């Protein structure tokens, strides 16, 4: 019974994700949670949503959307992460800010 196996796998992955979140591994925590989420999505899309049996164009919708999602997320986060990439003059601290006289 294919659906049942997929359901068990989904529950297992969710449990794994839950258990793993209890221990702290820094950035790896986020990566792991996302990888599991992507794996679960693939299971749901391929088997529950039957992409595996549909015409390929339906999968194209998923792939193109996923590409655009990755594009928007990565370039937005890249903006924030790289806002001081190039060497600048000294960054003003509170003490350097001129006082009113």
């Amino acid at each position, binding site marked *: 019974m294919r659906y049942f196996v997929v*359901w068990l796998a989904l529950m297992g992955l969710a449990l794994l994700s839950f258990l793993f979140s209890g221990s*702290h591994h820094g950035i790896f925590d986020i990566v792991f949670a996302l990888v599991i989420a992507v794996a679960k*999505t693939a299971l749901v899309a391929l088997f529950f949503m039957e992409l595996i049996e549909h015409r390929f164009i339906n999968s194209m919708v998923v792939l193109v959307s996923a590409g655009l999602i990755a594009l928007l997320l990565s370039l937005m986060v890249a*903006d*924030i*992460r790289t806002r001081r990439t190039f060497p600048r003059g000294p960054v003003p601290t509170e003490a350097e800010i001129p006082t009113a006289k």
Partner: protein
Amino acid sequence: MHEGPLHPQFENLDRQKDAARLGMWAFLGSEALLFTGLFALYAAYRTLYPDAFAAAASHNDVKLGTINTFILLTSSFTVALSVHEVRLGRARRAALLLLVSILLGFVFLGVKLTEYAEHFREGIFPGPSYRYEGLTGYGPRLFFTLYFLMTGIHALHVTAGMGMLAWVMFGAWQHRYSPLYHTPLELGALYWHLVDVIWIFLWPCLYLMHA
């Protein structure tokens, strides 16, 4: 065994079914991009306030979130089963499975509401009415505003999905669908799975990533 209506613009039933499925998938792609806007904001603010977001995420009740994950995954499973049953010609059983899914949807919303109630009790509100003393500053406030926005819009989708499922459940109970024709049931199921997939990503973002 009836094959369903053939609309005049289509040549044959296969094409009509392909069209309906592709239309639904295209719409789901569009829905995914709608949530992407929210996820992008979440990712950006998490990058700006990493510690505050982790702290705020750990304030959420991870047990309730996980229970909701299990509930939605299971409801997805019953919906998939129901499509399977209708293909075997067991429309009544399909309808019952849909009923289970809808009930699971209610449980999901119920758990969500208790979470909201707990947040409100603590003074966690979206936007400027945020009053919680335990977590102050920009980060947690933004986290919870996004939290309410994301789960709120998701809950709207859950409700819409339940409505859709109720409609096809009614149809299945009345034997409107047959192994040869059950496109509405299939489309309703696709929509419900999307709601599930979105929760699959909301759950780690809002509950799990508290390192």
